[in-house]
């Protein structure tokens, strides 16, 4: 079977779903010799109604908070089934990774299981209706952090999960985005070739949750990278080993203004603009700290 079809068509993702794009790219890289674990979330819901599975590879959805722990159990068992060369890959959303699954993930990292944990980051609990997660970026409105008279959306910064993964001393941590499929696929191939716990975070824009036309999903991922808000890098043993430079750095406004989840920042007077400023500062800091610019500006 074509690796590009290991996620079968007929699944129920929204048209233009960034997660579906990511998963197809990831499975193209792993091929059929893989066991996938997903926590509750968009991916699980749109691929597994009873009798209608989009998975052509073995796949298990346990609960919301325990994909990493369940993957640990599978990984431990495989050698007794003659399958020790079958990679175990988790594909979980930011909800099940950054928040409710955080403890179990840390445990899996710490125990050193041979598992590739891939987080598809659409920056909110999208499956249940666009509620705020710790991955929701500064200033974004969600249904549980809405803009209003007393609120400008989420006022906390995005939790830095890649840094947390790095702090566990993993041999491989990487970020990726669906707009650079060859990069993502290469990173997945590389990760599964290592033994030990690996973490890859893939930025997967959500047209419904962020508020933009479905056709722009890939472009939105590209803009996020080009503003510096989404650094693309690889790390090993707590140190950055490779960084993808941005060709032409774009101001964050070019990204933010295209999404309905930020529109309140443009009509809330000086306070809204101050948040926009803070977002630009975050991008500037990323560019400086990670060395994202191609040349001196």
């Amino acid at each position, binding site marked *: 079977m074509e690796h590009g079809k290991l996620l079968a068509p*007929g699944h*129920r993702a929204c048209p233009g779903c960034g997660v579906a794009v990511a998963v197809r790219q990831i499975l193209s890289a792993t091929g059929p010799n893989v066991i996938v674990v997903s926590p509750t979330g968009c991916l699980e819901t749109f691929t*597994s109604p009873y009798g209608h*599975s989009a998975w052509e590879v073995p796949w298990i959805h346990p609960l919301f908070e325990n994909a990493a722990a369940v993957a640990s159990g599978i990984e431990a068992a495989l050698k007794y089934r003659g399958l020790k060369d079958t990679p175990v890959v988790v594909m979980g959303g930011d909800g099940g990774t950054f928040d409710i699954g955080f403890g179990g993930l840390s445990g899996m990292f710490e125990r050193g299981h041979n598992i590739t944990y891939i987080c598809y980051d659409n920056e909110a609990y999208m499956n249940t209706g666009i509620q705020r997660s710790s991955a929701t970026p500064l200033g974004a409105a969600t249904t549980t952090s809405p803009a209003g008279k007393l609120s400008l959306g989420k006022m906390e910064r995005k939790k830095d999960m890649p840094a947390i993964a790095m702090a566990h001393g993993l041999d491989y941590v990487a970020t990726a985005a669906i707009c650079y499929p060859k990069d993502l696929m290469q990173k997945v191939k590389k990760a599964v070739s290592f033994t030990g716990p690996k973490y890859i975070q893939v930025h997967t824009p959500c047209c419904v949750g962020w508020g933009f036309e479905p056709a722009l999903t890939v472009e939105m991922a590209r803009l996020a990278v080009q503003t510096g808000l989404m650094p693309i890098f690889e790390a090993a043993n707590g140190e950055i080993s490779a960084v993808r430079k941005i060709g032409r750095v774009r101001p964050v406004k070019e990204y933010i203004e295209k999404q309905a989840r930020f529109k309140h920042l443009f009509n809330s007077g000086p306070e809204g603009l101050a948040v926009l400023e803070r977002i630009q500062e975050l991008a500037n800091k990323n560019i400086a700290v990670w060395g994202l610019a191609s040349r001196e500006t």
Partner: protein
Amino acid sequence: MKLTVGAVVLPGTSKKTKTGLWRATRPVVNTKTCNGCGICVLFCPDSSISIADKTCQIDYEYCKGCGICAHECSQKAITMQEEGK
């Protein structure tokens, strides 16, 4: 059909659902402009594009008409047209 023990499901059974019925717009490929680069295949969320004879072919049974392929095509070979016209 009887239910499975533990609600397990056989692989690829999502193909029973013809998501092509969801479309409001459909991608139309200009086969002369298309150079078979395959980037659309990597960006399609629905496994509904393949390259055959160096040309992009859309699987209209499943294509949801999201428009990513048209937007990302390196040759601007795909245009979105209203479904049913």
